[in-house]
C-alpha cells in the first residue's frame, strides 16, 4: 500500500515537473538583452570627462588609475578585469561622462589587453587639478592622497567648461 502511495506521489511529481514545458532560452545563438537598468561595462565619454578623478576616488575595487603623463595629459586607466560594475563611478561623475553600458559579454583570453579602458584627457589650464569633483556626501569627501589636488581656486568654478558651476558652488564651502 505504501509502495503504491509512493509510486503515485512520484508520478504526480513527474507530471508537476512536466507542466512548465521546455523553457530553455536560445542564448548564445539568439541574443538576449539584459533587463532595463542593468549595470554593464562602464564606458567614459572622453570628450565630456574633465579628469577630476572622482570615479577613481570612490571605486570600491580601486580599479581606476589616474596618471598624469605630462603637464597637459591625464590618463584614466580603467582596469575592467577587476571592475565590479557597481556603478559608483557613474553615480558620482559630476559631468555624467561615465555610462554603465549593457555590455556583459566580456569573456576574453587576454584580459590584460582586452579589459582595459584607457582615456587620455587633455588637461587645459583649469581642469588638470581635478578640483571640479565634489563628493556627493560628507562621507565621500576626499580624504586621501592619490589625486593631484592643488589649492582650490574659486575662479575655477566660474570658468569651468563642463558646466558644473552650480554643483560646484553649492557643495563647495
Amino acid at each position, binding site marked *: 500500500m505504501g509502495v503504491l502511495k509512493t509510486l503515485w506521489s*512520484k*508520478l504526480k*511529481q*513527474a507530471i508537476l*515537473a*512536466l507542466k*512548465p*514545458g*521546455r*523553457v*530553455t532560452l536560445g542564448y548564445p545563438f539568439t541574443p538576449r538583452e539584459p533587463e532595463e537598468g542593468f549595470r554593464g561595462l562602464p564606458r567614459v565619454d572622453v570628450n565630456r570627462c574633465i579628469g577630476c578623478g572622482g570615479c577613481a576616488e570612490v571605486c570600491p575595487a580601486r580599479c581606476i588609475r589616474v596618471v598624469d603623463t605630462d603637464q597637459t595629459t591625464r590618463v584614466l586607466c580603467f582596469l575592467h578585469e577587476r571592475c565590479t560594475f557597481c556603478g559608483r563611478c557613474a553615480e558620482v561623475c559630476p559631468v555624467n561622462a561615465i555610462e554603465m553600458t549593457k555590455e556583459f559579454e566580456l569573456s576574453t583570453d587576454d584580459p590584460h589587453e582586452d579589459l582595459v579602458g584607457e582615456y587620455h584627457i587633455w588637461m587645459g589650464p583649469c581642469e588638470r587639478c581635478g578640483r571640479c569633483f565634489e563628493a556627493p556626501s560628507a562621507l565621500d569627501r576626499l580624504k586621501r592622497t592619490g589625486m593631484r589636488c592643488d589649492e582650490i581656486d574659486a575662479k575655477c568654478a566660474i570658468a569651468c567648461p563642463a558646466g558644473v558651476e552650480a554643483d560646484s558652488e553649492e557643495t563647495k564651502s
Partner: protein
Amino acid sequence: MTLQSYLPTIGIALGQMLLVLLVAPLLEGMIRKLRAVIQSRKGPPIWQPYLDLMKLLAKEDLRVCASPIVTWGPPVMLAAILVAAGIMPMGGAVPASEVADLVVFIGLLALANLTLAGMGFSTGSAFSSLGASREVMIMLAAEPVLFISLLVLAMQSGSLTFAGMLEAPFNIAAVAAAITYLLALQMYVAKVPFDITEAETELIGGPLSELSGPRLALTHWAIFAKQFIYSSLFIQLFLPWTMTVIPWLGLAIVANVVLVLVLDLLVVGVAMSVNPRLRLDQALRYGMTLAGIAAVALIYSAAL
C-alpha cells in the same frame, strides 16, 4: 561435440556483443533526454554519450597506482559484461544456450562488479574504497533479487539455460518475479535512487573517482552496457511473447532494442528523475524486501 562446432556460436555471440556495445550509449542518451524533458530543459542531444566516450578515449590516462587491477580492470569489466551480453537471449533467440546458462551469466556480471570493487579498493583513496565497499553491499542486496527472480523462471521450466527459461509457463509466481525484477531494475542499473556506489555528491564518483581517460570510458561503457543487458533480459525472459509474435529474427532484435529503450525510459528514466538518492541502509532494506518477495515466489513455484 567438439570445440570447433562452437565457432558459429562464438560468431553470433560476438555479433550480440557488438550490438550491445554500440547501442548501449544510445540508451543512456535517451534517458538523459527524458530527464531533461522532466526538468523543463532542452538537454543534450541523444548521441551525447557517444561524444562523451569518444572524448574520454582521447584524454590523458592518470594513474594513482601501478596495480594490475587498475590497469586491466576496466577492459576486464567491459569484456565480462559484453560476454554476458553475448550469451543472453536477443530477439527471442538464444544461440549460446549450451555454452553458458544463467549461472554463468550471473557469474560474469559478478565478475564485472567485483572488478569494479577491486579497482575501487586499489587506489587507496577514501572515496573509491568506500564506493567499492558500497558496490559489494549493493551487490549483496541486488543480486539475490535478480538471481532469485530469474530462478523462479528456471524453476518453472526446470532448466537453467536461457532457452529453457524462455519456455517457462506464465503464472502467478512468474508475475511476482517479473514485478520484483522490475522494481529492482533501478538497483541493477545503479541509477538514482540507487547510484549509491558512484554517488557524485557523496563520494565524487566512488570507484570511478580515480579513473580518467580511456579507462573511464571503458568503465562508463560497461555501466551503459549493463543497463542495456538488465533491461533487455526483462523483455526477453518475462515478456517473451513480445518476441515470438515477430516472425523474422532481425526485426525481433530491432524490436528488442526498441522495447528496451521504452522500458528504460518509462522505468529508469522516470524513476531517476523523481527520486533522491537513498542511503545505503535504505537501499539494502528495499533490496532485501524484494529479495524476500522473490524468495516466496521461488518457493511457491517449487511447491507447484
